[in-house]
């Protein structure tokens, strides 16, 4: 048994209490520990990635209880990829937070580690009640991070976020209960074997449970019609928090990719293709609505929030096709859209601390580093809207290509292409208003003591690094896609996952 698999959960779980207990009053120590943990996590995730690419799916049985009686963690290419993405994002965004955000409230670094613990746990677990528990871990931490920095409006948005997610958690529990009541298992691999055996009279209960789970994951992934919490939450959170939250929507996408091809794929008999009629229309609606939101946005953070909804729509369109080719395109787009959305929130954050009118889409006075930030915004907008030459273009191209054979290809093509145009218009309008137009009559930033114009340089480094990552993603798309295609193949070979968890004998029976 590979004991390294549990470390992505253990490391933040140990680091967060240390941060609370030992570094409560010492911001410098907290920063050093937090950065060290983030670097360590990236190394660890990279090691697991290597391990996952040379070996078939690996199982880690907690407490050495055999599946399906104990809780298992499973490492395969998909989960390793998500771990690396989360670790990379958290390291780079943490750099941004060191520019001053982490000092504006208490326990920022501890909450950050707990958040990572929940995210990593959700990526690794092979048991869906355990998935619920890790969802709660990441949510509790995100509630704290969401209101980090305080302010009436932010706390109010935080209350809404908490309520929506508590309702989501109740639905999750009901779904788990429904599925357990007819299959008698909570283990995903075991479930995959038992879906076929469910009695005909109970199949409706199983389907209700599975579709409820789809809806819960849809809430996480901000799919229409349960997307409404996202703009308020992301738009009001602190910039680094919103950037980290970019991976949270992907937890929903990951969960759908994990559960549905495994348990409700081609081998599921009467239950196969359960999510197909629901996911694709919802995804296309999400995409359209997100990009219309981009057009209507009144501030850069709102723009970024709706761009996240739009990109989730694109991603889920590819996921909803449920074919290996479309899924590999989806995974590439997932990497791209996480980084691109995060960088956009960071840029919006940097603009808003430099201008008297914040990041509102209105002409203001000239501000520090305007040229640099404008260039950053330009690159991020190109990436996010999917214009050549950056990774968004490649991602969308692959998604369009994989949709060619689908029965509703016309719809997919039309929505993706038209929404890309809307995105370009929205971003063009926003960028030219904020970065080109100046209003000499606009009030200057109130604090005008000497030196206040000099901003910490770390946030800009962080933004630059994220953009460099996007460029690398484009430059090394070829080798990366080779790896990702194997990951997608693995997703659609559930028998290998089931073998890894249940053993060669196929379980205890």
């Amino acid at each position, binding site marked *: 048994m590979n004991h390294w698999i549990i470390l992505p959960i253990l490391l933040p779980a140990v680091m967060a209490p240390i941060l609370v207990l030992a570094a409560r009053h010492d911001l410098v120590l907290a920063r050093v520990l937090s950065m060290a943990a983030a670097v360590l996590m990236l190394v660890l995730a990279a090691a697991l990635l290597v391990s996952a690419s040379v070996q078939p799916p690996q199982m880690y049985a907690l407490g050495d209880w055999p599946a399906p009686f104990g809780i298992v963690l499973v490492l395969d290419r998909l989960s390793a990829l998500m771990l690396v993405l989360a670790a990379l994002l958290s390291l780079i965004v943490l750099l941004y937070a060191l520019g001053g955000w982490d000092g504006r409230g208490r326990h920022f670094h501890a909450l950050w580690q707990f958040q990572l613990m929940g995210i990593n746990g959700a990526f690794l677990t092979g048991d869906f009640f355990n998935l619920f528990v890790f969802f709660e871990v990441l949510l509790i931490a995100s509630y704290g991070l969401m*209101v980090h920095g305080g302010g009436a409006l932010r706390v109010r948005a935080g*209350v809404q976020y908490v309520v929506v997610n508590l309702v989501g958690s109740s639905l999750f529990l009901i779904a788990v*209960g429904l599925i357990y009541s007819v299959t008698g298992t909570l283990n995903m691999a075991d479930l995959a074997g038992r879906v076929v055996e469910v009695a005909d009279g109970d199949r409706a209960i199983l389907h209700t449970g599975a579709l409820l789970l789809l809806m819960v994951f849809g809430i996480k992934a901000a799919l229409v019609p349960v997307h409404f919490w996202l703009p308020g939450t992301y738009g009001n959170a602190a910039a680094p928090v919103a950037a980290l939250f970019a991976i949270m929507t992907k937890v929903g996408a990951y969960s759908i990719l994990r559960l549905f091809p495994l348990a409700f794929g081609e081998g599921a008999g009467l239950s196969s293709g359960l999510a197909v009629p629901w996911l694709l229309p919802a995804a296309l609606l999400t995409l359209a609505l997100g990009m219309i939101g981009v057009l209507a946005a009144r501030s850069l953070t709102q723009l970024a929030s709706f761009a996240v909804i739009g990109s989730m729509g694109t991603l889920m369109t590819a996921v909803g096709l449920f074919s290996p080719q479309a899924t590999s395109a989806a995974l590439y787009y997932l990497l791209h859209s996480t980084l691109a959305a995060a960088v956009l929130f960071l840029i919006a954050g940097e603009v808003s601390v430099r201008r008297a009118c914040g990041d509102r889409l209105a002409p203001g006075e000239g501000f520090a580093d305007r040229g640099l930030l404008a260039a950053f915004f330009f690159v991020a907008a190109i990436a996010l809207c999917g214009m050549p030459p950056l990774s968004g273009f490649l991602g969308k191209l692959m998604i369009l290509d994989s949709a060619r054979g689908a029965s509703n290809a016309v719809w997919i093509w039309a929505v993706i292409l038209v929404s890309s145009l809307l995105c370009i218009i929205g971003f063009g309008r926003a960028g030219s208003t904020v970065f080109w137009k100046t209003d000499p009559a606009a009030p200057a930033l109130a604090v005008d003591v000497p030196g206040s114009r000099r901003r910490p340089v770390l946030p800009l480094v962080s933004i630059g690094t994220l953009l460099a990552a996007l460029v690398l993603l484009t430059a090394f798309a070829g080798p990366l896609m080779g790896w990702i295609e194997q990951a997608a193949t693995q997703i659609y070979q559930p028998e290998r996952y089931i073998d890894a968890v249940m053993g060669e004998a196929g379980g205890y029976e």
Partner: protein
Amino acid sequence: MEFLLASAVGVMTAAGVYLLLRARTFTVVLGLTLLSYATNVFLFAMGRLAIDRPPVIAADASAYSDPLPQALVLTAIVISFGMTAVAVVMALRSFLESGDDLGAMTPSSGTPAQMVAEVGESSR
């Protein structure tokens, strides 16, 4: 017993959803609580309703009830209790910071210009 349990779950869910849709955070928290009660009872029933069957091994037991849903309910109770506490604290903080417990994002007495200013302020 089935009817009693099913109607209890139904009534609690309905009342919970109704309260959730209210505008004030206090009723919303009550709604969340009712909804989590309903969920817990529902989860409990997923192990089938049975009388006089122990969940753990006993010498004189002829049949057993499923212990897993009971363990799940225990976990769910702990989590939903903690989450409700978080929701109450956040609602209280929101009440203290903004002076009313309306859950809506629009400030109760603000003009559009003030709202825009607040949006700019909060993203700072």
